[in-house]
């Protein structure tokens, strides 16, 4: 077997992609932001192996991934909690682990959470597209999802691994509470729509992906029935398509949308949404905007 600065995909899992901090700044050209869905977990994985924040990691979905390293490296797995082994031996999760050349790193099916992040010292060094190495499932920019046999180059090691055995992380729970600020199109819905949204009747649908988290549950009734003219939408927007069941826009979301957005997730809750597996009960909690009270300016 050849050695070198690469990782080879032995088992790709349900969906494993290369992710970094994404490609913001191109939305006016129709280019999604993309990037790691659980950004804190991605950043932690990079810190643990001594990478800068903008290095690329591998984001897995539910069933993990198996990778063989060409050369000795440091690896860390964060995000969804999953058993991690090196050459079949259990090693630490959320911890820097030294692996020898030719070693096989296995991330098993997540026991809690949905997406794990696998960082290697040096970072995944595939070619950047518009300043990012992220795979964008909506527009097809960046590398294709990992397939068995793929070889991914690693970059130059930037710094030593973090001097910790295990990094503390938040706890993933059985139910996910997501804070939402109402707007920009909350006025397109009836007065009882916010109450239905917060009524705890939603679950994450199997049809969710990196583009959006689809929900199962009650439809939100509209007050204005007409068509919305397409307008820019943000990460974390809770958009309500014609059928009435909300969809939460995740990193690969389209840059403009034609359905009204009833509210927007608190940015600190995006990682919770990223880790909510299909079937997870979702509770929405409406919170105030950045300033006390709503601000709405009108001018003739």
């Amino acid at each position, binding site marked *: 077997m050849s050695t070198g600065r690469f990782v080879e995909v032995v088992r790709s899992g349900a969906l494993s992609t290369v992710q970094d901090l994404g490609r913001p700044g191109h939305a006016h050209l129709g280019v999604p932001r993309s990037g790691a869905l659980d950004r804190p977990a991605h950043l932690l994985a990079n810190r643990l192996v001594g990478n800068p924040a903008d290095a690329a990691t591998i984001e897995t979905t539910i069933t993990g991934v198996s990778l063989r390293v060409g050369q000795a490296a440091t690896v860390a797995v964060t995000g969804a909690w999953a058993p991690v082994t090196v050459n079949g031996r259990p090693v630490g999760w959320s911890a820097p682990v030294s692996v020898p050349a030719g070693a096989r790193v296995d991330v098993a099916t997540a026991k809690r959470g949905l997406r794990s992040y696998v960082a290697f010292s040096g970072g995944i060094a595939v070619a950047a597209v518009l300043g990012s190495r992220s795979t964008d499932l909506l527009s*097809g920019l960046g590398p294709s999802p990992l397939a068995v046999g793929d070889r991914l180059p690693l970059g130059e090691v930037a710094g030593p691994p973090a001097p910790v055995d295990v990094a503390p992380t938040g706890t993933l729970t059985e139910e996910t509470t997501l804070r939402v*600020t109402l707007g920009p199109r909350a006025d397109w819905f009836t007065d009882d729509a916010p109450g239905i949204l917060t009524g705890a009747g939603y679950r994450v649908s199997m049809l969710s992906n990196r583009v959006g988290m689809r929900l199962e549950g009650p439809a939100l009734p509209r007050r204005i029935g007409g068509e919305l*003219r397409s307008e*820019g939408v943000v990460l974390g927007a809770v958009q309500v398509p014609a059928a009435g069941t909300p969809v939460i826009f995740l990193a690969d979301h389209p840059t*403009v949308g034609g359905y009204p957005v009833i509210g927007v997730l608190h940015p600190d809750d995006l990682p919770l949404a990223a880790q909510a597996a299909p079937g997870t009960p979702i509770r929405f909690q409406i919170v105030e905007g950045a300033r006390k009270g709503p601000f709405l300016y009108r001018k003739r």
Partner: protein
Amino acid sequence: MRIIPVGLRALLVELPEPAHTHALVAELDRRRERGELPGVEDVVPGELTVLVDGLDDPAGLAAQLTAWRPTSVRPPDGPLVEVPVRYDGADLAEVARAWQVPEEEVGRIHSAPEYRVAFCGFAPGFGYLTGLPERYHLPRRAVPRTRVPAGSVALAGGYAGIYPRDSPGGWQLLGRTDLVLFDPDRDPVALLTPGTRVRFRDVGR
């Protein structure tokens, strides 16, 4: 003008007419270059809206913008892009019927006006082109296609557009072009950006 908060870090500005969106985007670009919009990541025009995302102080910008007056009603002229089209699309007969003209006339009608990119979205490099006279506006197809080939020239509602890559889509297909609309290795990556003027040229079947 109405300014609506979008989450904690963005504003959606509603404007009374499409020309004002161009003026506001130009104004925001100027302020950005002067360093007056800290944190801004994206300025996304829609038809009658501009989304400003990544603001450190959305309330501050909202307060500033209430004093702003659109300076130019006519949007600034962007570059002119000529798009050669073979008018042999899958929906040509249907469009001709809806317009009540012979099929041969569809290309002439479609290529007559000068269009302008109002905004982008749907896919990288997909521009929503305005300029088609209202009597030729048509609804989307009732059932969208699962695959529309790259280069397809299409229309729906009041817009014309060109699919930059193979994708699902519900617009009426008039023809196709070999022009590459989006190439991440090219500078600029997108041929059609907001404000760009577009002329379609009928190059036969």
